[in-house]
């Protein structure tokens, strides 16, 4: 929990901010004193619950239903933000969806659905958010290691995240003169509901931490901590970077079991 309220007085929009990684980010930014706007797609009750948890931390919390894959719904969301808050300081592009299919089974509808929500939405939200960031701002995109590593049915999401990361770099340069900092986070397998979509194998969480040098899976709170850092002043010179947070998993060959590191005999030869 933040002690200094480094984001007091700031207004933050977290797309997909009601559950999983988004919820952790919402609550972390609330811990730092930011008023939070929680965008959600379907679960109004979940969004209301997360908003209640944020308010309990002493900040304002507002929920907005919108499918960020639809431009008119993004327009409506930002009209509501402007009417209620008059400004925006932080945009967290977290909402994501995807069709879990191999490349050969992916049709254009599944491709468009995934790209619209995961990549195009950031462009459209950033354009509208930048107009509300009159005194500078922060944008953080939540990407995935699937942008650079290959998983069997992750094609559409992986490609959309690669586009998101490239857009993060372009916007970091284009928006810098407005005092807007743009960075991204690429997470490995995160212990969340969404993981089940792409990893129906119930043993995956265990396998994942076993193959992670850090010795455990990435938790939503790990990502939230990094978001808070990227929204604070200590990261002022980090621009357009996509920071990997995976406990070192991507550094090691798949299948390496780090849970058995007992050292063994010292080589004395």
């Amino acid at each position: 929990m933040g002690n200094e309220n480094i984001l007091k007085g700031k207004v933050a929009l977290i797309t997909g901010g009601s559950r999983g990684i988004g919820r952790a980010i919402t609550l972390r930014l609330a811990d730092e004193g930011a008023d939070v706007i929680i965008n959600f797609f379907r679960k109004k009750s979940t969004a209301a619950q997360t908003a209640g948890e944020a308010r309990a931390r002493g900040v304002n919390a507002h929920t907005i239903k919108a499918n960020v894959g639809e431009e008119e719904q993004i327009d409506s969301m930002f009209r509501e933000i402007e009417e209620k808050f008059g400004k925006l300081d932080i945009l967290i592009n977290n909402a994501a969806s995807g069709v879990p299919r191999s490349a050969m089974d992916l049709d254009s509808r599944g491709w468009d659905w995934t790209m619209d929500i995961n990549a195009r939405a950031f462009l459209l939200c950033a354009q509208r958010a930048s107009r509300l960031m009159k005194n500078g701002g922060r944008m953080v995109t939540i990407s995935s290691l699937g942008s650079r590593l290959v998983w069997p049915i992750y094609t559409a999401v992986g490609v959309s995240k690669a586009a998101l990361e490239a857009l993060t770099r372009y916007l970091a340069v284009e928006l810098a003169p407005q005092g807007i900092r743009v960075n991204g986070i690429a997470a490995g397998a995160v212990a969340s509901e969404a993981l089940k979509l792409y990893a129906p194998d119930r043993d995956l969480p265990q396998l994942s931490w076993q193959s992670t040098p850090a010795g455990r899976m990435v938790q939503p709170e790990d990502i939230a901590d990094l978001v808070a850092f990227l929204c604070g002043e200590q990261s002022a010179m980090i621009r357009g970077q996509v920071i990997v947070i995976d406990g070192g998993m991507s550094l090691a060959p798949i299948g390496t079991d780090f849970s058995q590191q007992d050292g063994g005999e010292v080589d004395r030869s």
Partner: protein
Amino acid sequence: MSLEETMSVEETVKKIATRILRKSEADYASAASFKDLGADSLDIVQILVAVEDTYDIELEDEELQNITSMKDFVAYIERKVTDKQ
């Protein structure tokens, strides 16, 4: 009062499904499930969102997993609508 509020749940679901799936009422009548109508996972999401928005209800994915027929789907929506009132 909207048109949907004067229609039965079954009529509303039919209207939503035929619009999203671009099928005729005859196609709908001859199908037992959305899968029979050629619906894929994206179609299902769009149908669920449209039904939720129409009735201002939340459908639970865990409960929906056990529903395969349109008849059971309609009955489930009717229960949700009744519970809300």
